[in-house]
């Protein structure tokens, strides 16, 4: 025993020097691996934000082996298939954090894990466009321009590459067919007495961005598409809706729709169309894009500035923003942000287009700027209870 101990002691002492030398070398290597394009076998540069050639990116991502996502529900915009395709295509695993998190939670997850490379730190985020401001101000996102950058419309991306929209939807009416004989065709129709106790939102105005936009869209319809005064007009519209007894304060979801508790629901088109498929005719749903007040809601993608797997993260966006990834969104009824470009080049399968509401309905879709979103949101949330419920 004692002999062994002595021997092992000697060995480790001798090895200690060797290990020290190796560690020093590795440190030097690691130091030069980060900045600047190093010679073959080294990892590509992350600081310029330029698109990394796909082969290099795949190789680098494979060394990481994993991607951590957050807030991607599988039944939202076809994320289930996007995730599984990415996994099988590149042979990486995906660690999915809280699928039901909101935009603020996603940013909080980055903030809370700044110093941690553990499994709780997200690599990529998918947030409401309004949140990109905070994300950039707090330095939570890294810049990167995917290969298809130029075909993303200019007002749907940050010119430095800190965020870009991946998909958008418009607010539609989701109508339970057998119970509602005449589907409403425009916002004003919803005020008719025949819809008493039947109109619901899919979220809470003080909590869900979708519902804030529902108020704004109704207002846009009243102002004839002018964003100025749309928030106030929207509040007035919902006040009339509430006074008429048409508005029921139930938060609609697929279950409540199936149960026929909420017969007319305002929701993003991709969620409404997914519900239509999910319920498979029980009950049958009619999806109506309103004639006026067609409000587009884009989402924004980004890469965490503290991403534990920076290459897998960039590979994720290269995939999602490619024609293939964008078509997967469309399969989940979310309009890919590169829709126009792809339609022009004829890369969208015809059977997919057939399942969507007519393309003309989307032509007048209004894309608010971040500033407009912030301003209208403030007006709507601060006055919602006062104006609509008439609380002093």
């Amino acid at each position: 025993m004692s002999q062994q101990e002595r021997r092992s002691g000697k060995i480790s002492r001798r090895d200690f020097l060797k290990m020290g030398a190796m560690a020093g070398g590795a440190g030097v290597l690691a130091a030069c691996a980060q900045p600047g394009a190093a010679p073959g076998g080294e990892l590509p540069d992350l600081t310029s934000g330029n698109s990394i050639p796909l082969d290099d990116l795949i190789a680098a991502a494979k060394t990481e082996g994993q991607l951590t996502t957050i807030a991607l529900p599988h039944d939202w915009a076809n994320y289930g298939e996007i995730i599984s395709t990415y996994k099988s295509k590149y042979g990486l695993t995906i660690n999915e954090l809280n699928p039901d998190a909101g935009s603020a939670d996603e940013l909080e997850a980055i903030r809370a894990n700044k110093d941690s490379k553990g499994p709780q730190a997200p690599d990529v985020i998918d947030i409401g466009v309004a949140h990109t401001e905070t994300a950039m101000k707090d330095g939570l996102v890294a810049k990167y321009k995917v290969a298809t950058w130029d075909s993303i419309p200019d007002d749907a991306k940050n010119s430095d590459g800190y965020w870009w929209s991946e998909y958008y939807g418009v607010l539609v009416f989701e109508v339970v067919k057998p119970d509602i004989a005449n589907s409403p065709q425009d916002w004003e129709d919803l005020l008719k007495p025949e819809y008493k106790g039947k109109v619901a939102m899919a979220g809470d105005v003080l909590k869900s961005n979708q519902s804030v936009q529902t108020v704004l869209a109704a207002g846009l319809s009243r102002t004839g598409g002018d964003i100025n005064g749309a928030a106030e007009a929207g509040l007035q519209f919902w006040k009339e809706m509430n006074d008429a007894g048409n508005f029921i304060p139930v938060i609609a979801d697929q279950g409540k729709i199936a149960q026929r508790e909420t017969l007319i629901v305002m929701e993003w088109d991709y969620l409404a169309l997914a519900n239509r498929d999910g319920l498979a005719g029980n009950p049958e749903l009619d999806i109506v894009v309103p004639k006026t007040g067609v409000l587009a809601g884009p989402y924004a993608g980004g890469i965490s500035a503290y991403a534990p797997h920076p290459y897998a993260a960039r590979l994720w966006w290269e995939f999602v923003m490619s024609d293939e990834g964008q078509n997967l969104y469309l399969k989940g009824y979310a309009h890919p942000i590169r829709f126009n470009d792809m339609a022009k080049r004829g890369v969208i399968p015809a059977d997919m287009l057939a399942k969507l509401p007519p393309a003309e309905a989307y032509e007048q879709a209004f894309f608010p700027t971040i500033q407009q979103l912030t301003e209208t949101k403030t007006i709507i949330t601060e006055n919602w209870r006062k104006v609509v419920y008439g609380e002093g």
Partner: protein
Amino acid sequence: MSVPNTKNRTIGDAPRARPQTPSAKLPQFILDWAGLAPFFLFALAFLFIPSFSIFVRSFQANDGSFTLNNIVALFTQRDIINAYKTSLQISAITAVGGALFGFLLAQAVILGGLPRNLRTFLLTFSGVASNFAGVPLAFAFVATMGNAGLVTGWIEAIFDLDLRQMGFSIYRMTGLSIVYMYFQFPLMVLIMAPALDGLRREWREACENLGGSTLHYWRYVALPILLPSLLGTTILLFGNAFGAYATAYAFSGSFINLVTILIGAQIQGDVLYNPGLGNALALGMIVIMSITMLGYTIMQRRAARWVR
């Protein structure tokens, strides 16, 4: 430990329940407190540290700097003042209502001479029902009494009415109060049953022997004995309703303006997001609960005065 103590003898001649000697004082003291250590640890981890964190974060702005805005908002923003009013109102109504009806039911079951089986059944049921709250309860209520609810459907079919057109809606304060009663009521039964069990038959007989009526018995014997537990349970029900969130939110979103729902809107979601204000709102709730507890302690003292 129990070395007779001669020094203190002179102080009084009452028998000493706990003989103490200076030498035994310290170890006994430590032992007593060591037994309580798990409780204090628990209270520290789940009560004091979270409360302290809420207190600290109430004074933080979104960027982490010190601010008094959140506290000021508690007293100036209409929505917030209204929310406290509504929360207090609904808690008081359902606490008093739950206590009253729960007490009557418990009394009927325990003292009403019902078969023993029924009593076991009712207590087990109350145990389950008092925990049946939150999303399942709200959903059950919506499915039964909602616009497309089962019972609503029956009423509409039998009487050939369109309740929606008539303006009927469960999504009101009254509706939510009724929903709350579903967990308040059984909790009261559950807690009052043992207290009622404690009423001895002999006391009643004694009262009757002295010529007292049932009214006299309740007024001068039973109620004074039960009052401390009645008050305690009512306060418990109050807190139960005051802190309820999931039930109310699943029931009607933010339609009914409760403090807990406002807190939810501030600390999660895409829209408002001001955790500092959320914490300040929670701090307000802690203060209100503390005042309530203080009031309770004073009332409890008075109610139990005759015991001492």
